[in-house]
């Protein structure tokens, strides 16, 4: 009754080909963005910003990037952590070596270098596919872990290998308070989210999906596998690289190579799979789930332990966190292998025919 496209007549081509063709979708998205931009900064505490909201936004952005590669183009990648690292270190080097470079340009520059690296490490995907490719992308991960640790030029010869950035500002707006950082990241997520959403429904997105579904058949109907696969690697690693730069600059402030380890790659892949392969909204759901779950477990376990009268040590909590996290992932994959995005679309479908489902 509330959510249906009946009576919404498209009279121009522009109206017919907009990103959200259903008016209700547009309103919900706008309301969500307005809520995130206006209401959240008023009510959230510093802890909320620092521990939950900012990591969630940045990892959502990264997950959108990974989803383009894994979910839309079907190339499983375990090297996303490395592309984040490349983005972060490239942005850092631009920031300190180029006099007076604007912050946004440095961040986008980080994305640009991540793109170059992504294309190079995407080349094996032309020969190798599936799980072989997943393992091959680990090469990127271990190579860049090593490079940022051993090649001192990248870290500007910092003795401990960790780098810092300070005094971030955009056009006189100093990004210092957690709320400012939050808004800055939110702006990036909204812009890149909409760009990605627009991209995947265009010609190039359809090429990616054709390659994902069956690359030989796609090649037969005239899609160039090399162009499609490498463009997916390029777009994906650009977004992941920008997310990495944000992670280093805005969230951490100072970081070392361990911040972008192979665990980060696994985490991003978890987000994409749990959120739903081939869905931009799903990446954001997945990022929320994976970011919140450990925090929730960390808070809830000692309380639960008190309830049953068990003495809970910190070591036990961290191990139990591992166990519950692992078990929940498996449970979730069994219950809904298509991810949270599937639940979302099922809910929309139900809403569409409500209240007369027959």
């Amino acid at each position: 009754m509330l959510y249906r496209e009946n009576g919404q007549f498209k009279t121009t081509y522009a109206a017919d080909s907009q990103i959200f063709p259903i008016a209700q979708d547009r309103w919900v998205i706008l309301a969500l963005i307005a809520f995130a931009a206006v209401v959240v900064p008023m009510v959230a505490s510093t802890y909320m910003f620092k521990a939950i909201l900012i990591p969630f936004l940045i990892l959502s952005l990264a997950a959108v990037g990974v989803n383009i590669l894994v979910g839309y183009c079907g190339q499983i990648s375990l090297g996303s952590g490395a592309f984040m690292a490349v983005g972060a270190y490239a942005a850092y080097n631009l920031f300190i070596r180029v006099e007076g470079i604007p912050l946004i340009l440095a961040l986008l520059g980080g994305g640009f270098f991540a793109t170059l690296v992504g294309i190079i490490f995407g080349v094996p995907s032309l020969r190798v596919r599936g799980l072989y490719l997943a393992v091959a992308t680990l090469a990127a991960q271990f190579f860049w872990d090593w490079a940022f640790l051993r090649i001192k030029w990248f870290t500007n010869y910092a003795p401990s290998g960790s780098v810092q950035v300070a005094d971030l500002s955009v056009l006189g707006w100093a990004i210092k308070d957690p709320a400012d950082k939050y808004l800055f990241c939110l702006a990036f997520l909204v812009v890149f989210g909409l760009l990605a959403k627009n991209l995947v429904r265009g010609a190039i997105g359809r090429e990616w999906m054709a390659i994902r579904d069956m690359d030989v058949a796609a090649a037969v109907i005239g899609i160039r596998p090399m162009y499609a696969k490498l463009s997916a690697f390029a777009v994906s690693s650009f977004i992941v690289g920008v997310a990495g730069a944000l992670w280093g600059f805005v969230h951490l402030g100072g970081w070392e190579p361990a911040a972008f380890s192979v665990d980060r790659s696994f985490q991003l892949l978890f987000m994409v799979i749990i959120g739903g392969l081939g869905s931009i909204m799903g990446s954001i759901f997945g990022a929320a789930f994976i970011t919140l779950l450990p925090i929730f477990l960390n808070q809830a376990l000692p309380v639960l332990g008190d309830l049953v009268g068990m003495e809970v040590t910190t070591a036990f909590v961290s191990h139990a966190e591992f166990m519950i996290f692992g078990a929940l992932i498996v449970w979730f994959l069994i219950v809904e292998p298509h991810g949270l995005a599937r639940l979302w679309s099922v809910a929309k479908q139900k809403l569409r025919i409500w209240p007369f489902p027959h």
Partner: protein
Amino acid sequence: MGFFLETLMGGLMTGMLYSLVALGFVLIFKASGVFNFAQGAMVLFAALAMARFAEWFPQWLGFENKILANLLAFVVAGALMFAVAWLVERLVLRHLVNQDGAVLLMATLGITYFLDGAGQTLFGSDIYKIDIGMPKEPMFLFQSVFEGGVLVSQEDLYAAVIAALLVIALTLFFQKTSTGRALRAVADDHQAAQSIGIPLNRIWIIVWCVAGVVALVAGMIWGSKLGVQFSLTTVALRALPVVILGGLTSVPGAIIGGLIIGVGEKLSEIYIGPLVGGGIEIWFAYVLALVFLLFRPQGLFGEKIIDRV
């Protein structure tokens, strides 16, 4: 020349140990099409169980004999790995039949987290020793051929022998027993195997049990070399290039791949490492595997990939 041979021998023996871990991957992938990321966690879990039981049994039962303690611990840890295999099949794999490869991969990552947590909750998270009486002092070979001979760690030599024995035992099991024949049938073609009455579920349990035993042996050897600790799980990450180099579906591939990676790693570390700042072992193995893959996308001995529309 002597030094080169030493490096080569060291590489071959490390390679043997990588093959052991890689073997676990290959066995499970062949039989069930699951890329089992949990192999590293299984190695850690088995090694923790072995180390702790060998420590606990003498206390509980009041005896001193070390060999008996190790033997008992090995049997109990093996039984524990069987239990893990059964649970994994029962609770996870059975519900994920026909899912996409990526989903199965993620499920085994979930199992990895679970086993890491469970192992450390049950057995503690310190560094433990496994003492199965492997001689520590090095020995010299070919002293008559070269001046000074070739220095070889006896421990590595024993480990390589144990690994070789395990591989021979596995080969016999696969070729000579009826269960082994059923396993090979499933590996060849799931549907055909099922249609002639081979129970898939039982085969999966068996193959996870075998992988569990392989993990236990690998954990025992790596544990007595490096000590049983959390970093043992990274052994799995170092064995991955071995698997893709040899081919995901080939047992001999795992062994030969292990030897190539082992030697390549050691030689590169010694002859190329100093030029670029050292520590290149881990990514060099991956790049080596990658270069091989560019020429043979299915790995050295993997089944040829045939594209059909």
